[in-house]
């Protein structure tokens, strides 16, 4: 377990790129001395990297065609709707 939720908050702020330079200093120093927080940080980074590694899929072939074929027929009322 990590030592305090305050440090864990800072780890998350780091991951969201929201640390002030003071906070960055605090957490960097802390990570050097606290193995539990270092481990926690490492696990968070690993989880994020795993999730990001799944981000390469494409829509199936003929997807656009499928959508276009399912659209309602063009509305003749369009002109007097606006």
């Amino acid at each position, binding site marked *: 377990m990590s030592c305090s939720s305050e440090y864990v*908050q800072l780890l*998350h702020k780091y*991951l*969201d790129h929201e640390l002030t330079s003071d906070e960055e200093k605090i957490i960097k120093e802390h990570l050097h001395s606290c193995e539990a927080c270092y481990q*926690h940080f490492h*696990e*968070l980074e*690993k*989880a*994020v990297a*795993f*999730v*990001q*590694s*799944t*981000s390469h*899929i*494409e*829509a*199936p072939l003929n*997807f*656009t065609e*499928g*959508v*276009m074929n*399912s*659209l*309602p027929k*063009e*509305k003749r009322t*369009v*002109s007097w*709707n*606006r």
Partner: protein
Amino acid sequence: METLIKKRIKQVKKGDQNAFAEIVDIYKDKIYQLCYRMLGNAHEAEDIAQEAFIRAYVNIHTYDMNKKFSTWLYRIATNLSIDRIRKKKPDFYLDAEVSGTDGLNMYSQVAADVSLPEDELETLELQQTIQGEILKLPDKYRTVIVLKYIDELSLNEISEILTIPVGTVKTRIHRGREALRKQLRHL
């Protein structure tokens, strides 16, 4: 990019259906990916992604041209995905056993059709494991994690898509990350 999109939307609003095809082409991969990661099933993802584009087309007159089109489209797709998750029977997952096949599941059926080299197979298995862990997240955490890390949207955009404050987005991302950390740390 946004200029091109807006030009096409004006054409669609005037009744030119074909102009919509270009919009679908530009966003289909992102929207499909969002639906796939939310639902974990290719067939449902295609269904919901198509539905999202159809709804966008039908409701195009409600889209505010001063706002970013992708935010509006993402909102439609996200809401449809969440609706589907809530309606979905819990036993309808890829790793559920296919009835009458004695331990076979849909993965093994899919895998049997194609032979993959060893390392590709490992990657595929890993990807499926990660996908499975994403699916275990409660939907409000799953949504923000998918939007941030898979569709790579900013916290502000996610806040607009979900119409929740940025602070809430951050809290949910923190909790989602913590849950994933625990689920994925032994991999």
